[in-house]
């Protein structure tokens, strides 16, 4: 773009700004009730979303509670430097990344598979009953689900009762490191798999039935119809959900881990969020734990950006 056009452009946009300002004032006068309505919402978002977001700057400070984040001394990247040389953080990061990876590998595809299986059920009553049962655990809290898991896997719990029946020795599942991550993934699937199918089932319903009819005429069986029609047409939905997931890659959910963790399993199960809670909220290391939180967000955003670029190559990105 030439310099001249640029100039004209700027002048023009300034004039437009003024015009817009006048229009805005008139708009507010005319629809003042709408503006009044949204005030509580704006106040809410500023106080509880934007101020904490801006408050993340304490990751670059030596935050002192009585000085607030305006007067606390700046320390640059010191908190981050400290973190990367800190043994505890390595362990916590490794646990978080591993559990996140397992969840991505097993928990993410689970509702897709379940939705495809649901789709093969012709008996409508049966399908509805199944769905009701599968959706139920989503509505239970992690405290309750954690309680259930502990009870079922306890020494005198039902799982060990079943093991005993086939002559196996009881296992203290919740106290042993080897089982922790498996338990996290399975309990996560148990709680959310049904709920996760809703959106995929909606995507399947939206598929034009004439595609299947054409495929049947061409002699495609159910498996081929699934492979070549259902799955490809679910792909946009899968991609979007994958991207939304990857953006929160390291955010595993505090409630689940906190309610499954015992001191015996810290070495494999202590994740960023549980660590931040203990070191930050309970011990007051505010700046350091905010640095961890920020690091977590940056990784999430970077992953989202990378995978969105990849997805865009097949024209299915989020933006």
């Amino acid at each position, binding site marked *: 773009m030439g310099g001249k056009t640029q100039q004209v452009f700027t002048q023009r946009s300034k004039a437009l700004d003024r015009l817009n300002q006048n229009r805005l004032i008139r708009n507010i006068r005319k629809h003042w009730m709408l503006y009044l309505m949204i005030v509580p919402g704006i106040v809410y978002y500023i106080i*509880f979303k934007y101020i904490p977001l801006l408050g993340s700057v304490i990751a670059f400070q030596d935050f002192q509670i009585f000085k607030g984040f305006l007067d606390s001394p700046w320390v640059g990247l010191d908190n981050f430097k400290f973190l990367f040389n800190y043994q505890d953080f390595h362990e916590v990061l490794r646990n978080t990344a591993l559990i996140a990876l397992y969840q991505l590998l097993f928990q993410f595809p689970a509702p897709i598979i379940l939705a495809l299986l649901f789709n093969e059920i012709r008996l409508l009553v049966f399908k509805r009953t199944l769905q009701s049962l*599968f959706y*139920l655990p989503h509505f239970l809290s992690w405290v309750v689900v954690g309680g259930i898991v502990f009870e079922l896997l306890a020494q005198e719990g039902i799982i060990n009762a079943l093991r005993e029946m086939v002559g196996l020795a009881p296992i203290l599942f919740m106290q042993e490191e080897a089982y922790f991550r498996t338990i996290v993934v399975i309990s996560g699937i148990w709680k959310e798999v049904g709920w996760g199918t809703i959106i995929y089932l909606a995507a399947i319903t939206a598929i034009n039935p004439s595609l299947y009819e054409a495929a049947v005429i061409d002699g495609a069986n159910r498996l081929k119809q699934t492979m070549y029609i259902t799955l490809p047409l679910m792909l946009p939905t899968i991609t979007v959900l994958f991207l939304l997931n990857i953006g929160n890659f390291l955010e595993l959910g*505090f409630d689940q881990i906190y309610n499954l963790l015992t001191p015996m399993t810290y070495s494999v199960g202590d994740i960023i969020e549980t660590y931040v809670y203990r070191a*930050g909220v309970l011990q007051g290391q505010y700046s350091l734990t905010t640095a961890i939180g920020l690091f977590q967000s940056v990784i999430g955003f970077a992953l989202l950006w990378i995978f969105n670029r990849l997805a865009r190559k097949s024209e299915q990105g989020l933006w």
Partner: protein
Amino acid sequence: MKQTLGEKCFQILNYAVLALLASTMIAPLLHLLAVSFSSPIAADSKKVFLIPVEFTFATWEHILQNEVLWRSFWITVFITVVGTLLSMLFTVLTAFPLSRKEFMLRKPIMLAIVITMIFNAPMIPFFLTVREVGLMDSIWALIIPGLISTFNMVIVRTFFMGIPDDLDDAARIDGCNEFRLLFQIYLQLSKPVLATIGLFYAVGYWNTFKTAVLFLRDPSLWPLQMRLRAFFTAEEELAAVDLIMGDFDFNTTTLKAATIIFATVPIVLVYPYLQKYFVKGAVLGSLKE
């Protein structure tokens, strides 16, 4: 349509596998229900599966007399009722202007709100902000910091945008102002979507845990989930009696099972009634813009 043998086998297998998996969704709860009505000896000797063994009400009698549990129960009822109503009011008030074409700041405000979905504030600055606001050790800390769920707000906004414009014109001719338009026309037409987000909010408040962990140090304010957690981690608190003193017809195993059922029953009770609404909501709120 003709089915091959393979397809028939798959069909049968599919029905069987799904039925089995579906039963694992409810079986743990039925098992714990059975445990809560069994004698402690039967429960601990692994005899109880889905039917109570040595049936007794002792566990439930003890649980239902636990005043601390009831206190937490009523706190949860309070935050569920008051929180859901406030949340719905705030959500609707925010969603309505954002659904109106004549509202000039619609796009920038919507963008600013969606950004908060992508960039979540880290836990600590959020914690410090809520503390600065003065909500530490107040049950309002369970309501106000999570007042509007952006997800739910987007559901309502999408629904409002789908209501035909002709209604507005008719209303305007009748001299209807925008508050009345929202409360007397739009909300009347939005009952299904309001039921959906009401359900989402209510379940969220009923299951409130993390905010209680963060903001409530005073145990007398704890909501139900927090109390359950305390019972699970400090079993003696749950029993609240000296178990060595005599023979009781309950122990921590049966008590824990009963408290889990206690916290779950209200959800299971409203579940079938509200089920018809939430599926629609889950799809609506997902990705539409």
